[in-house]
C-alpha cells in the first residue's frame, strides 16, 4: 500500500474523468475548428465541458473562461498582458502581490521588475495571510493590478479574497487571484466575489495535467499571450486540447459535488492527523485550522529536518512534501516559514500533508503511526536534542 498525501502538488485523476476523456484520443480525434464531421464530433462534449466550467465557478455567459495549458500560463498571461495593456506607455507602473505567492506569480513579477515595473510584495501575518488593511495601505494611484492567491498551496490558508476584490473594485484597480488551491476544494463563486481575473488548474482537482483556465470578467479583456489562429475567440491560440477540456470540465463538476463531503469528512481526517501531530512535543502547526482548505496541514517539527522526514515517510510508502513541488530539488528553506516570521531554527522543519477525497481513515491512522516513528528516530539522531555537558557552550 502506498499513501498519497501530496495532493496540493497534484492529484490522482478520477476514473470517471479519465473515461470521459478517452473517446477524444482515437474515435473523436478531430480538430474542433475544421469544417467537417470529424470536427463536429467534438463540439457537444466541448460545449458541455465549457458549461461545466462556467457553472463550476458561477460565471456569467458574458464573461470569458479561456482554456490554457496550465495555471502557470494563466498567471503569466494576466501579469504580462497587464504590463502591455496598462503599464507600458501609461501613467501606471505598480503591481501588488504577496510574499507567499506561487513561483508562477513571483518569478513573473521579478521579470517585470527587470523591465522597470514597481512591485510590492505584501507581507503575511503570523497566520500566513495578507490582511486587507495591509493591501489597502499599499494601493496607490499608480497601481495597475493586485494579484493575491485565494488559498495558499503550502499552508492551505484562505485569504480574504472577497474583501480584497471589493476594495480593489471600489478603488478602480484590477484584481487577479490565483485560485489554483481553491477551485474544486472550496466554493468559488465569481458572481459573488468581484475578481477580474482568476486562474485555476485541472490537475489540482482530479483532472488531467497541463490544462488550466483563466476567468476574465466581462469588459476586462486583456491582450493574448499566445498569438496565432482564432481559437478561443482569438484570445488564446493553439488547437484545442479537446480531451483535456472535457476532462477539466467533468472533473470540476465532480469536485464541486464533493465539497460538502470534503468539508466534513476530509476535514475530520485532516484534523485527526493534525491533533496527532500536536500530541508530539515541540510541534507547531501553521495557521488556524478553521481558516484553511480542509485538506491541508503544514507542520513544523522541531529538530527534524524536512528532507529527512520525507525520507523516512517515503520508506513507509507515504508521500508528503516539504513545500512547493517545484522547489523539492532545492536546498533552501520553506519560504512560508520565513514569511510568517517563524523561529529561524524551524525554517527547515516544515512538512506538508495534503489529503484528498480519496484519503481514508485507515491511511491516516497508518500515517500517524509512521510519523511518530519517524520523529522518534530522527530526534534521537538530532543535535537539537543532544546531551550538552555542563561546561560546553554551544556557539556557532
Amino acid at each position, binding site marked *: 500500500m502506498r499513501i498519497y498525501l501530496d495532493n496540493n502538488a497534484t492529484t490522482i485523476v478520477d476514473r470517471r474523468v479519465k473515461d470521459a476523456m478517452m473517446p477524444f484520443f482515437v474515435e473523436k480525434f478531430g480538430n474542433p475548428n475544421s469544417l467537417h464531421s470529424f470536427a463536429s464530433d467534438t463540439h457537444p462534449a466541448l460545449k458541455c465541458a465549457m458549461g461545466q466550467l462556467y457553472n463550476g465557478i458561477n460565471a456569467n455567459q458574458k464573461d470569458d473562461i479561456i482554456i490554457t495549458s496550465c495555471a502557470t500560463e494563466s498567471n503569466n498571461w494576466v501579469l504580462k498582458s497587464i504590463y502591455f495593456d496598462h503599464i507600458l506607455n501609461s501613467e501606471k507602473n505598480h503591481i501588488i502581490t504577496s510574499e507567499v505567492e506561487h513561483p508562477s506569480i513571483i518569478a513573473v513579477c521579478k521579470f517585470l521588475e527587470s523591465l522597470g515595473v514597481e512591485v510590492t510584495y505584501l507581507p503575511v501575518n503570523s497566520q500566513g495571510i495578507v490582511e486587507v488593511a495591509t493591501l489597502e495601505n499599499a494601493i496607490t494611484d499608480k497601481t495597475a493590478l493586485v494579484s493575491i492567491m485565494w488559498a495558499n498551496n503550502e499552508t492551505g490558508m484562505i485569504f480574504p479574497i472577497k474583501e480584497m476584490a471589493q476594495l480593489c473594485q471600489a478603488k478602480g484597480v484590477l484584481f487577479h487571484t490565483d485560485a489554483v488551491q481553491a477551485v474544486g476544494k472550496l466554493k468559488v463563486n465569481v458572481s459573488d466575489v468581484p475578481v477580474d481575473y482568476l486562474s485555476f488548474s485541472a490537475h489540482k482537482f482530479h483532472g488531467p495535467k497541463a490544462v488550466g483556465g483563466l476567468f476574465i470578467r466581462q469588459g476586462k479583456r486583456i491582450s493574448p499571450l499566445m498569438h496565432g489562429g482564432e481559437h478561443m475567440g482569438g484570445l488564446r491560440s493553439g488547437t484545442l486540447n479537446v480531451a483535456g477540456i472535457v476532462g477539466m470540465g467533468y472533473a470540476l463538476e465532480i469536485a464541486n459535488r464533493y465539497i460538502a463531503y470534503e468539508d466534513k469528512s476530509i476535514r475530520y481526517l485532516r484534523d485527526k492527523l493534525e491533533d496527532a501531530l500536536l500530541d508530539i512535543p515541540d510541534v507547531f502547526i501553521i495557521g488556524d485550522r478553521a481558516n484553511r482548505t480542509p485538506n491541508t496541514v503544514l507542520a513544523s517539527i522541531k*529538530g*527534524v*529536518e524536512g*528532507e*529527512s522526514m520525507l*525520507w523516512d515517510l*517515503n*520508506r513507509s510508502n507515504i508521500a508528503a512534501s516539504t513545500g512547493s513541488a517545484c522547489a523539492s*530539488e532545492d*536546498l*533552501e*528553506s520553506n519560504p512560508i516559514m520565513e514569511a510568517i516570521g517563524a523561529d*529561524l*531554527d*524551524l*525554517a*527547515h*522543519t516544515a512538512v506538508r500533508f495534503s489529503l484528498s477525497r480519496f484519503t481514508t481513515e485507515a491511511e491516516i491512522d497508518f500515517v500517524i503511526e509512521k510519523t511518530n516513528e519517524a520523529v522518534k528516530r530522527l530526534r*534521537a*539522531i*538530532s*543535535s*537539537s*536534542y*543532544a*546531551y*550538552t*555537558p*555542563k561546561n*560546553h557552550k*554551544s*556557539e*556557532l
Partner: protein
Amino acid sequence: MAFEDLIGGSIWDEYSQKVQDLMNNPQNQGEITEEDAERIGGKLIVADFGAESCGDAVRLYWVVEEKTNIIKEAKFKSFGCGTAIASSDTMIQLCKGKTVDEAVKITNIDVEHAMRDNPDTPAVPPQKMHCSVMSYDVIKKAAGQYKGVDAESFETEIIVCECARVTLGTLQEVIKLNDLKTIEQITDYTKAGAFCKSCIRPGGHEEKEYYLVDILADVRAEMEQERLKNIADGIVTGTTTATFADMTIVQKLKKTEEVIDEFIRPMLIMDGGNIEIIDIKQERANIDVYMRYMGACVGCASSSTGTLFAIENTLKEKLDENIRVLPI
C-alpha cells in the same frame, strides 16, 4: 546537459547505497557524557558546527586519551538531511583510533570517497556535496578545542570552494597559466563551483568571503596590466618578449613604422615614392596593415606586385607571419 536537465530527477536516486544505508541506520550516532569519558579514560571534547536555521547542524563528541592524543571513542548528533547524517557517520568512523593531528587531515573529499559504492561514481549529487564539508569543519573545531587553539589555525591556505577544496592560490595560478576567461572554464579545470555553487557569486546557499567571479575579474585585470607592462618594457628596451600580435594598436603602429623606416622607405624614396600607414586591424588570425602609396609609387606597375610583395615579406619577417598588406 540539456537533455539531462529537462526533466528533473530525484536527488535521492543519486545517493549511493552506502549513503542510503547509513541514513537508515547510522552506526555512530549518539552522545558521550562526562561519566562515559571518564570510564573510557580520556578527555571529553564536544564541538558544534552549522545551525538549524541554515538546514544543517552537527555535534561531535570525542574522547581523547591525553597521553597519546588518540581518539578512543567518537559519536555524533546531526540535524540535517540524509546526506548530512551519512557524512557525519562516515566522518566519525574515519576519526576513531586516529590521533587528533591525523584526524584534522581528514577532508570532506575523504568523507565523500568513503561513501562511494564504486570509486568512480560520486556518493552524493553535486548540490549535496556541502553536507560533507560540515563534517570536515567540525573536526577542526574539536581539534582546536582539544589543543586550545583556533580552528582556523589548521587551515594554512584560503579555501574558496569548500566542496572541492580548491584554494585561492590554486585558482589564481590556474587562471593565469591556462588563460581562463569564464567561470565554466574554471569549473572544468578545478571543479571549483561544480557542487553547491555557493562560491560562484554572492546570493548562493552560503555566504562566502571569496567568490569565483571576483577572483576571475581580479586575475584577468592583473594579467592585462602585466601584458601591457611587458609590451611597454619591451618596446623601451628593444628586447620585447611580447609578440607583435599581443601589442596594442598604438604599439603595433609604432613598431610597423620603425620597420618601414629602416628597411622599406629608403628604397621607395630613392625612386621618388613613399607610403603612408592608414590603419592596422586584427582580422581573426590576420593582422591587416592598410597603407597608401604616395609620390612616384602611385600608379607604378610594381605597386600591386613586386613592391607590394617586398613590403609584405619584410613586415612578415620582421614582425609577424600573419601580416597582410592592403593598399588602398
